[in-house]
Every structure is written in C-alpha cells, then in structure tokens.
C-alpha cells in the first residue's frame, strides 16, 4: 500500500517507499487528487545522479577532530630516533640509552610546558584512551576502599564512559551528568551531585564531536572546594586553546599525540604531584615511568609528541586565529546559502576549529557519501561505522532526525581557505540536490509540519 503525495517525476529512496506510509490529515489533503499515487519511474534518476562527477586526487581533509596530519617538523625531530638513535631510554649502561633518555626527558619538558605543568608530572602512554583508562580506573581503584562514587558527563568520549561502566561492575557508583541544550554542564547540577564519598570528577575540556568548551575554571574550583580529584580529557584542547593545569585546578589530564599534529600511538597523562594524586597502575612490569606505566617508553614517539607540543605552543595563537577565521567564513557562507541549518553546541563557548552542523531534511549518511571530495565525519571516528545517531547530540536533546543529519567539519593548521570554499560549494550543491529528491522537503515546502505526521511502518 502506498499513499504518498508526490509531484510527478520523482522517485523516492526505495527504503522510504517500501516501508513507510504517510497518513496526511484531512486538513492538508491535496487539492489536486491526481497527484496521489503518481510516482513516475521514467528517467527520473537522471537529475539527481552524481555518478562520474567525483574528482580525481586526494580529498580535502576536514576531519581534524579524528586525527591530524603529522607536522613535517615533528617527523624531522623523530627521524634520528627512527634510524640510528635506537637506544632504549631506560638503558643506564651505555651511550645509546643515555642519549635516548636525554631526548625523551627533553620531550617530557615540552609536553609539561604546553599545559603549564612540571616535567615530573608527565607520564608517557600509548594515547588518550590509555590515559583516560589509567586516570579513571586508577584513581577509583586506589581510593576505592573509602570512596565509591565517580562523576562524569553524558557527552564524554567512549573510553571514559566505558571505563566507568567497568567500574560500575566493580561496585562503584557513577553519576552521568546531563548536559544542557548547548552542550555545557550545569554547575549547580555538578555541585549537587558531589557526595562525601566522591573520588573523581571527569569532564572533558573540548568536546570531540561538537567542540564546546566546558567551564573548566569553575568546575576545577568546585572540585577543589569539595576535595574531589578532577580529571579532564584535554586531547582536543591541548595546543588548541590555552590550557593551564593550575588555573583549571586539574589533578589529572589526558593528552593525545595525534590530535596535536604528532604521531599516533603516543599520549601523555598529567598527574599532579602537589597535592599528590595517587593511582593504581593498570600495566605492571619493569617499573618504567615511576611504576605507573611499565613498558619501554617508545622514544621516537615520545620525542615526536614533545616536538608536537613544542610547535603547538609556538603556533597556538596563529593556529587558533586561522581556525577561527576559516570556521567563521564557512559558518557564515553555509548559513547564508543553505536554509534550515543549525549549529550544534554552544555558539560562544567553543573551539572554532570544530563546526558541527545539522542539515534538516537531508539524510546525513547520504550527504557524507555525496561529499566525496571532502573528508568529513558525522561524529567521532569510533562510531563512524554505525548508522546510529551520535549519543553526544542525543544528550544535548537534539531531535533524532536532526542528530541523523549532523556533519562535523574539522578545521586545523593545514586547512586552506580554498578547501573551505570548495567544501561550502559542495555542501550547498548536495544539500540542495538531496532535498530536491526528499519527500519530506517537499512537504515542508507545502507547509506541512513534519513532526505532526504519523509514520507507520509495515
């Protein structure tokens, strides 16, 4: 059975025609009855087809939240260690070890300087995921005899949420703080959630999907007043915005190498020394990194992270201004040329290099596919294989249909103005094209409120 109002030569996606019946209320019944059931199959695909239009060459990379290109200057710092300086930084008996140790310690200093910490407070790990696991599980397990409660937010990265889930199975209680519609947590809700047995509050600084910046100074103050440890996943913040562990009162912080134009496979965890924060290590072994993270430090990667941190500190203001300029340009152009677009997350408190837009009445996956010449994502890379809408956007209270149509544009150090112009043109073209073949769009044009339609699957 099929009862759908459509103008002549248009085909629907097969999914829609076969599974959905649109019941239109009497008040909006069409005046021209003959349009009903008129679904032409002749030659209708031609206008919408983009077959063969894809351009040759590599696409423009606008997914700088998933990862960033490694800066050539970082590779330059790593090359000696990848070739002839192959010593184990923990070898104390020969020159190979000494020189590797010296370079690793220098890198540690650069990482510390980036976040205003002391080199002794930095532990090298395999990445931000390991850092988050170490911080959340480590603090919980060390202080677990007396403190059984952890607070985090609903919009955290999966590795924090999943670590919390593991702890729940170990008998800990977790509070997942809701966020407001702009993606920021409510400080009063946080204050109310803190209990005498709360061990840790974990709130990410810059959200990886929507780019909002949480009120870190205020959260840090609340945590310090209540003598609760404060951990933050600053993978998306370090090197992009001004991060200072003392201003924010951070006790633990997770950094990732490949989000700051460094190599993949390395990260760093900041652990405060004064007042001392203790964690139970996850990895046991040779006692490297003060016993907190055993295993040989990958000297080339650590040096790469150090170089990336050094460059990030030097270039931060320039990078920020560049990202801001391009992001504002893109936002303005898209809003001007494409109707029914919304920005997800707070418009003010955000890192400009992350532009998460929802295009109403367009299927997000189709748009992603159509934007073949720009590499973008609908959300985090971890979940980009699934068609589920982003849990971050759901936590913001974004409607399911809008959450399905979100696209995250990531602007970084190496993004050019030309790429932004190109992306805007493509977005305009394809959003228009996809809307033209959407029956929903047509109903909107006719003034029907989509939300009032009763969808029946059969």
């Amino acid at each position, binding site marked *: 059975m099929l009862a759908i109002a459509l103008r002549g030569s248009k085909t629907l996606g097969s999914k829609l025609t076969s599974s959905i019946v649109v019941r239109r209320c009497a008040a909006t019944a069409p005046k021209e009855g003959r349009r009903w059931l008129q679904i032409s199959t002749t030659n209708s695909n031609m206008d919408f087809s983009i077959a063969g239009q894809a351009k*040759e*060459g*590599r696409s423009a*990379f606008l997914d700088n939240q998933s990862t960033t290109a490694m800066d*050539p*200057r970082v590779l330059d710092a790593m090359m000696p260690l990848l070739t002839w300086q192959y010593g184990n930084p923990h070898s104390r008996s020969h020159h190979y070890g000494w020189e590797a140790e010296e370079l690793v310690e220098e890198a540690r200093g650069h990482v510390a300087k980036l976040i205003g910490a002391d080199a002794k407070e930095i532990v090298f790990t395999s990445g931000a995921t390991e850092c988050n696991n170490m911080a959340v599980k480590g603090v919980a397990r060390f202080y677990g005899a007396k403190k059984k409660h952890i607070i985090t937010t609903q919009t955290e990265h999966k590795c924090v949420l999943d670590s919390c889930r593991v702890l729940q199975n170990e008998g800990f209680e977790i509070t997942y703080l809701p966020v407001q519609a702009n993606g920021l947590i409510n400080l009063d809700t946080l204050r109310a959630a803190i209990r005498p047995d709360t061990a840790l509050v974990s709130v990410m600084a810059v959200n990886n999907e929507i780019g909002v910046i949480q009120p870190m100074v205020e959260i840090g103050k609340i945590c310090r007043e209540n003598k609760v440890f404060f951990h933050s996943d600053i993978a998306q913040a370090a090197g992009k915005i001004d991060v200072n562990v003392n201003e924010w009162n951070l006790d633990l912080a997770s950094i990732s190498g490949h989000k700051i134009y460094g190599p993949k496979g390395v990260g760093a965890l900041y652990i405060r020394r004064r007042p001392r924060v203790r964690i139970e290590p996850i990895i046991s072994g040779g006692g490297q990194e003060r016993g907190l993270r055993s295993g040989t430090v990958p000297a080339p990667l650590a040096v790469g992270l150090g170089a990336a941190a050094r460059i990030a500190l030097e270039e931060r203001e*320039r990078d920020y201004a560049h990202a801001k300029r391009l992001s504002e340009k893109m936002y303005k152009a898209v809003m001007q040329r494409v109707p029914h677009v919304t920005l997800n997350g707070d418009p003010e408190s955000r890192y400009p290099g992350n532009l998460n837009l929802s295009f109403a009445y367009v299927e997000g996956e189709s748009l992603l596919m159509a934007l073949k010449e720009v590499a973008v994502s609908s959300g985090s890379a971890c979940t980009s294989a699934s068609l589920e809408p982003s849990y971050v956007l759901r936590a913001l209270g974004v409607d399911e249909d809008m959450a399905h149509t979100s696209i995250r544009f990531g602007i970084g150090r*190496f*993004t050019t103005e*030309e790429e932004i112009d190109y992306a805007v043109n493509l977005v305009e073209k394809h959003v228009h094209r996809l809307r033209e073949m959407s029956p929903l769009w047509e109903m909107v044009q006719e003034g029907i409120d989509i939300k009032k339609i009763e969808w029946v699957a059969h």
Partner: protein
Amino acid sequence: SKSDVLHLYRNLLRNSKKFCNYNFREYFLRRTKEDFKCHKNESDPSKVQQLLEKARQDLVVISRQATLSQMYAADR
C-alpha cells in the same frame, strides 16, 4: 643585513614550494609570509638575531622535509 634577510625569505619560500603535499606546501608558504610580514618593523637587534636564527633552523628542517616528501610523492 637587508639582503641576507631577503635571501633567507626567498630561500624559505622556494623550499616550502617543494612540498609535494598541497596542505604542507600552502601552510609553510603562509607561515613564512606571515612571519616575515609581522616582524617587518622589528628594531631590537637582539630580537632580530633571534628571529633570524629561528628562521635559519626552520629552513634546514623545511628543505630536508620537502626533499623527503618528494621521495614518497603521492597524488597532489
């Protein structure tokens, strides 16, 4: 001297242009131009020396990495 600075500037631009990767090429061109433009009126001699030293170090890195990029040239 002025001609030394100009020489260094041209050298940086020339080597930046050698990057096979479009984004790296554009970035180092933009960065070099911005750097020299923004410090054009620097009068403190020790600061000038410091900036020139940094630029010389950058030139070594950029020329080395640009050459390397040509060895692993992909499309674009």
